[in-house]
């Protein structure tokens, strides 16, 4: 009797590289994109803001920075240099000054690259939103914390001050941030190219908080951020819970319920792209480039939780429960064209792909973001392949009337890939310590 052990409900270690290569293949497969041309909102190149001395946690002291001021807020660390600008308020480059000095204050650069990338998009969109409504912003945590010189503090003074990320003397942390910033992208509502309000907060357990007046800010389940794993805890202290949970983003990027320290309290799902994070926390939004054109995909989904299926056996029903979130910009409606949406799976061995027989239907009209129903997927067709390592990918399908179902991945949205190891002769129900962990 053959058995299949899922190595990669959390694809760590060996599983990581395999899952990434699978993901990369899909991403490289020329996804169809729903671009548009006309753009009413012009993404700004500069931003104007007033700069104040800040309190220890980034609050506004009400004291404006002037030349010679060495207070925190005017400089990145009290006593380290003096306020570098000739004016106050200042007008500075969005990409080459503002965001480089905002993001490290809002998220540790030690966070996972995709969490940083999502933070960059959220921070840029947040700034765009305020510019679009002519807000008079400042450098305090009432908006986004901006302190001059923060980027430079992570390494040497960039040798190309006009375009720091093009410098030749960047440290590892600086390079990591520059990589996260490489393409100026922002989020908009589905029906417009104006920026949405991308609030974000430090942490929030279980379910984020919605803000009815703002498109994109819908309360969504965030089960990886919880208070019940017994090892570490998610907290609402000091947060507002709206939009992206920064610590939650780090958890999804690590696939662990603990955002800090050694990897522990592993979660059943790990995400691999900033888009997964952004479309999870911001509902029904589009991703746009520096020209305002959409650069995302219209068919999207995220698994939030996978239960069961740690061990699958051929010839018998193997049940797996998957909590599914519609992260598309629109509801999954059922109509004359689309009969419905199902969660399915495929087995992958090298270049060979086998569509699974089992499928789980999602409710017609499932809206973006929330709710995220749990569906039961029964797998009966474990392939009889030689012992080895293969992939089991979960994917959503749109059932088009009169034609073949369309996998979301055929549009370019990566399926959720799990590394599985086909073993032999498992005759007893014993736990196999087969999950490769860091």
């Amino acid at each position, binding site marked *: 009797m053959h058995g299949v052990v899922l190595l990669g409900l959390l694809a760590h270690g060996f599983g990581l590289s395999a899952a990434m290569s699978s993901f990369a293949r899909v991403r490289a497969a020329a996804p169809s994109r729903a671009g548009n041309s006309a753009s009413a909102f012009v993404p700004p190149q500069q931003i104007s803001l*007033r700069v104040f*001395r*800040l*309190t*220890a*946690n*980034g*609050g*506004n*002291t*009400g*004291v404006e920075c*002037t030349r*010679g*001021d*060495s*207070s*925190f807020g005017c400089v*990145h*660390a*009290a*006593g*380290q240099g*003096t306020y570098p600008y000739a004016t106050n*308020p200042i007008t500075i480059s969005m990409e080459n000054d503002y965001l480089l000095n905002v993001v490290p*204050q*809002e*998220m*540790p650069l*030690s*966070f996972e690259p995709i969490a940083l990338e999502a933070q960059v998009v959220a921070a840029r969109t947040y700034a765009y939103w305020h510019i679009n409504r002519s*807000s*008079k*912003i*400042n450098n305090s*945590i*009432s*908006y986004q*914390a901006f*302190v001059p010189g*923060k980027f430079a*503090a*992570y390494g040497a003074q960039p040798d190309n001050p006009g375009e720091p990320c093009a410098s030749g003397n960047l440290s590892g*942390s600086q390079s990591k941030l520059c990589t996260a910033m490489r393409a100026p992208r922002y989020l908009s509502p589905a029906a417009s190219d104006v920026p949405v309000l991308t*609030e974000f*907060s*430090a*942490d929030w357990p279980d379910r984020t908080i919605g803000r009815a007046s703002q498109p994109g800010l819908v309360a969504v389940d965030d089960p990886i951020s919880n208070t019940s794993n017994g090892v570490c*805890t998610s*907290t*609402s*202290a*000091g*947060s*507002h819970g*709206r939009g992206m949970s920064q*610590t939650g983003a780090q958890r999804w990027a690590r696939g662990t319920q*603990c955002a*800090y*320290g050694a990897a522990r309290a592993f979660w059943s799902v790990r995400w691999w792209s900033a888009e997964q994070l952004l479309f999870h926390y911001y509902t029904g939004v589009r991703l746009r480039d520096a020209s305002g054109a959409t650069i995302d995909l219209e068919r999207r989904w995220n698994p939030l939780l996978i239960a069961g299926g740690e061990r699958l056996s051929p010839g018998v029903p193997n049940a797996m429960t998957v909590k599914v979130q519609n992260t598309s910009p629109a509801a999954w409606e059922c109509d004359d064209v689309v009969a419905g949406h199902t969660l399915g799976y495929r087995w992958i061995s090298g270049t060979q792909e086998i569509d699974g027989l089992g499928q789980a239907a999602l409710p017609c009209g499932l809206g973006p973001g929330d709710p995220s129903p749990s569906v039961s997927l029964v797998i009966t067709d474990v392939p009889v392949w030689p012992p080895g390592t293969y992939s089991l990918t979960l994917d959503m399908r749109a059932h088009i009337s009169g034609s073949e179902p369309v996998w979301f991945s055929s549009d370019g949205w990566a399926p959720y890939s799990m590394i599985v190891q086909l073993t032999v002769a498992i005759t007893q129900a014993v736990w196999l310590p087969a999950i490769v962990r860091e």
Partner: protein
Amino acid sequence: MAALAVVLLGALGMIALGLAALQRAKPSALARLPALTTMPAACAFAAESDAAEAIAGGRNVSFRAGDATPWTGQPLRVADWAASKQSLLILTAGKDPASDSLLLYDPRTGASEPAGQRRASTLLPHWADGSGRVTEQQDLEIGAQLLNQPRVAGVPPASLVTMAVRVIQRPDSSQSLVFGALRAVLMDSAGGGCTLTINWDGDADLPLIDAAWSGDGRFLAVLMMSDPGRLGPTALRVLDMSLGQWRTVQAEDGAISAMRWRPAGHELYFTVTHLDEPERLDTLTAIDAGTAAPIDIAGAPELFAPAYWGFVFSGDGRVLYAACGAPDADGVLRTNSICRWMVSP
């Protein structure tokens, strides 16, 4: 690590400059700290009280708005209550931290005068405790020597280096809390001490922002940043010295930006800054530390955000003072008055 050391040395240098003036103004000596040279063992306090659940039906306190005294020159901050002078300490900001100045303002007469030779700054809050006393330079040096042993890898959060070492004496002078950046030590005047573990349930040490003893010395409130890597979130924890237990004070929908004990009681007031809502003022909130019950505040004043050291009780606890003002043409809140609220009971 080296970066932190350099910065802290710089900060200490500034402390020394400021304190030379302080020493001239305040020659009487306070109880000196024992000269500990190594971090003592951890204090044996319980991490969290089992009785931390808030008790319903807390007491009621009402605030009634009084007059506002215009203040020439801004911005200003109501920094502290100088008991010996029955006056407020008012901070006015100069062009840089070294030129910030501290004034004594008598709310009964409206008169103000320079606070002796004392100087203060938003950078170095060394006017410190609520009695109007200042910390002895020697104590600060002892504290700095004890605490400033950087152990932060990489670039520290910028906020770390804004916080100088502070020494806050328990009202009965039996102990002092010495804290700065990531460390806090409870030192006994008779010698010895212990290291406070405040972030008992987290992965990382957290920067301390402020600490304060209740009027009778039973409670110690500690305000700290609640996230090691970013600005904004804060956490407020209260240590009941009589029970040896900590309690966490939760703030909803925001960051706690300032805290004050109301004199002669166990009422702990704190302001909550509403993140991402710049148009909102801070909300004044309170708990009774003795019972953990929230205090129902009628007519609660809304204070400028963030009211960092921006509200002060009079010595009898019957008046609350805070800087107030109005938005300017650019929508920036400008403090231009000292407002008062009558507090009862």
